C-alpha cells in the first residue's frame, strides 16, 4: 500500500505543484491519478520513487517513509514506465528489459532468461529480443517499457502517461493488455493520465486532481460517474457521463429472444419484420428484412455477461434492425436483444 500523508510540493519560486494531498493506493489495485495539465499528477507520482522530493508530508510504502530510503535503492524496487518508453537506444531489447536485474547483480544468464519470459508475457514475439529499440514501433516499445518495469518483479508499478503517445487502436490494446497482466500479477499500480476514459477503464479507484494539486474526488469509477463531488469533477468527466456509466451495467440480466434466428438458406414467411440468419455453427451471418428477403443487413454483437450495456447498445445502433446480437465467448448466437429489451434494461440502470 502507498500512503500519501498531507504531502505538499512547493518549488523555490513559491509555485505549489501538490497541495496537502492525502490518499491511499491499496495493495494489488490500480489507482489512477487524473486531471488537467498543472494538477500535479505527475509530480505526485514522481514523489513516490523520489524522482522529486516532497516539501512537506510523508509518503509511505507499506508503512515505511520513502524519504528515508536511498533513491537508487528505492527505485530498483519500484517499476517505472514513462510516456516515450525511454528505452536505451544502444542496447538490445533483451538487455533493456534486464536493466534492473543487471543493476541488482543478477547473473547474466538468469537476467536474460527472465527478460525473454517477460517479452512473451507482454505479448511480444521473442524474435524481437535481439533488435534495437529504433527497429520497433511505438506500441512495441511501450510494451518493452512495461516488461522492463516488471523485470525484477517489483510489488509497485508507477506509470506516467504510458499510453498517451501511441495511436488510439494501439492504446486500446495496450490498456487491455495491462488489465490482463494485472489480473495475473496483482501489482500495486499508480497510473497517471489526463484521459478520463482511460482512468475509468483502468482504475480500481480514480483520484481526480484539480489545478494547484488538490484532490477533488477519490472514488471507484462507477461512483465517480454517478456522483461527481462537484462541478469541476462533473465538467472534467464530460458530457457523455451517462453513456459511460453504462460500461458498469452488466448485460447478464438482459432479456433475450431466441425465436428470431433462422438457419441459413431457409425461407418462408414470418410475422417478424427482421430475422437473424445464422450459419451451421450458430454464428450470425446477417439480418434479413421481411420486405427485402434477398438481402442481408449488417449486425452488431456483444458477449453476454462479459460486455457491458454500453457495448450492447452500441451493437444495436450498428444494425438497421435496431436489435443487438448476444453471443457467447465462442461467437455463437445465444439470443437477440430487441429495442424493447434494451429499453427495459436502460430504465432499470437509471433507477437502480
Amino acid at each position: 500500500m502507498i500512503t500519501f500523508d498531507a504531502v505538499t510540493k512547493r518549488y523555490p519560486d513559491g509555485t505549489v505543484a501538490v497541495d496537502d494531498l492525502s490518499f491511499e493506493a491499496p495493495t494489488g489495485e490500480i489507482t489512477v491519478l487524473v486531471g488537467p495539465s498543472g494538477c500535479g499528477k505527475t509530480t505526485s507520482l514522481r514523489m513516490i520513487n523520489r524522482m522529486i522530493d516532497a516539501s512537506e508530508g510523508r509518503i509511505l510504502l507499506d508503512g515505511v517513509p520513502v524519504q528515508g530510503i536511498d533513491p537508487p535503492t528505492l527505485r530498483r524496487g519500484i517499476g517505472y514506465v514513462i510516456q516515450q518508453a525511454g528505452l536505451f537506444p544502444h542496447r538490445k531489447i533483451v538487455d533493456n528489459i534486464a536493466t534492473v536485474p543487471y543493476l541488482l547483480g543478477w547473473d547474466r544468464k538468469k537476467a536474460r532468461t527472465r527478460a525473454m519470459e517477460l517479452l512473451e508475457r507482454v505479448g511480444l514475439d521473442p524474435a524481437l529480443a535481439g533488435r534495437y529499440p529504433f527497429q520497433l514501433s511505438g506500441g512495441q516499445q511501450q510494451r518493452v517499457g512495461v516488461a522492463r518495469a516488471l523485470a525484477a518483479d517489483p510489488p509497485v508499478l508507477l506509470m506516467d502517461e504510458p499510453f498517451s503517445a501511441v495511436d488510439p487502436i494501439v492504446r486500446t490494446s495496450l490498456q487491455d493488455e495491462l488489465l490482463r497482466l494485472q489480473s495475473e500479477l496483482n501489482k500495486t499500480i499508480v497510473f497517471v493520465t489526463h484521459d478520463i476514459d482511460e482512468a475509468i477503464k483502468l482504475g480500481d479507484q480514480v483520484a481526480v486532481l484539480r489545478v494547484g494539486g488538490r484532490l477533488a474526488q477519490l472514488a471507484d469509477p462507477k461512483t465517480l460517474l454517478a456522483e461527481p463531488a462537484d462541478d469541476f469533477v462533473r465538467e472534467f468527466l464530460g458530457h457523455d457521463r451517462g453513456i459511460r456509466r453504462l460500461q458498469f451495467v452488466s448485460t447478464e440480466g438482459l432479456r433475450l429472444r431466441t425465436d428470431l434466428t433462422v438457419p441459413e438458406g431457409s425461407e418462408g414467411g414470418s410475422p417478424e419484420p427482421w430475422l437473424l440468419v445464422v450459419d451451421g455453427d450458430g454464428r450470425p451471418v446477417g439480418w434479413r428484412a421481411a420486405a427485402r428477403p434477398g438481402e442481408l443487413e449488417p449486425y452488431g454483437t456483444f458477449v453476454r455477461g462479459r460486455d457491458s450495456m454500453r457495448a450492447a447498445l452500441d451493437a444495436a445502433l450498428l444494425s438497421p434492425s435496431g436489435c443487438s446480437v448476444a453471443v457467447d465467448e465462442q461467437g455463437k448466437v445465444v439470443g437477440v436483444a430487441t429495442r424493447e429489451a434494451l429499453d427495459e434494461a436502460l430504465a432499470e440502470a437509471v433507477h437502480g
Partner: protein
Amino acid sequence: MSWVTAFLGWLAEFFGDGANWTGSDGIPARLLEHLEFSALALALAVLVAVPLGLAIGHTGRGGMLVVVAANLARALPTLGLLVMFVLLLGASSIWPVIIPLVLLAVPPILVNTYEGIKGVDPELRDAAYGMGLRGGQVLGRVLVPVALPLILLGCRLSAIQVVATTTVAAYTGLGGLGRYVIDGFATKDYASVVGGSVLIVLFALFVQAVFALVQRVTVSPGVSRRLNIR
C-alpha cells in the same frame, strides 16, 4: 595539360628517388615523426577535454567554460601561437610545439563531448534514473554510449586539425611531413613540395579512415541506426 605532366613528373622524381626512402629525413622517418607528434598532441587533448566535457555536460555546471573555449579556438591564429611558444620556450624540445597543438585540439573535443552529453533526450536520462541507476552509472552506461558519435566527431575534427597544424609546425624547425613542403619551397625543389603535399593528403585520409573504423567498432548499431543487423 602540361601541368599534369609536370605534376606527375615531380611525383615520379620525389617517390622514385631512392634517397628519399632512407635516413632521418626519409619518407618512413618523416611519416613516423608526423604520426608521433599528432598522436601525442591528440592523446593529451583527449585526456583533458573528454573528462571535462563529460563532467560539464553531466552536471550542467561550467557551460560558460565551453562557450569561451569554443570562441577562443576560433579566434586563435595557429601559426602565431606556434611561433609564440617556440620563441618563449626555445626549440630545444618538442614541447613548444606540442603545447599549442594540444591547445588547438582541446576545444572541438570539449564542445562536442559537452553538447553530446547535454543533448541526450531528457526522457532517456529520466528513465535511467527512474530504473535506479546512480549518477555515474547514468553517465557511463547510458549517456556516453548514446553521445559517442558526437564525442568521436569532436576527436576526428581535432585530429584533422592537429595533422594539418603539425605540417605547419615544420616551419619552426620540427620534423614531420611538413619539412618536405617548407624545405622544398626554400630550395625551389618542387618535387619535394608536391611529394610532401601528397603524403600529407594521404595521411589525413588515413586518419579519417581510422576514425571511421573506430566509430564502426565502438558505436552501438542501435545508436548509429545501421541496418542489416543480424
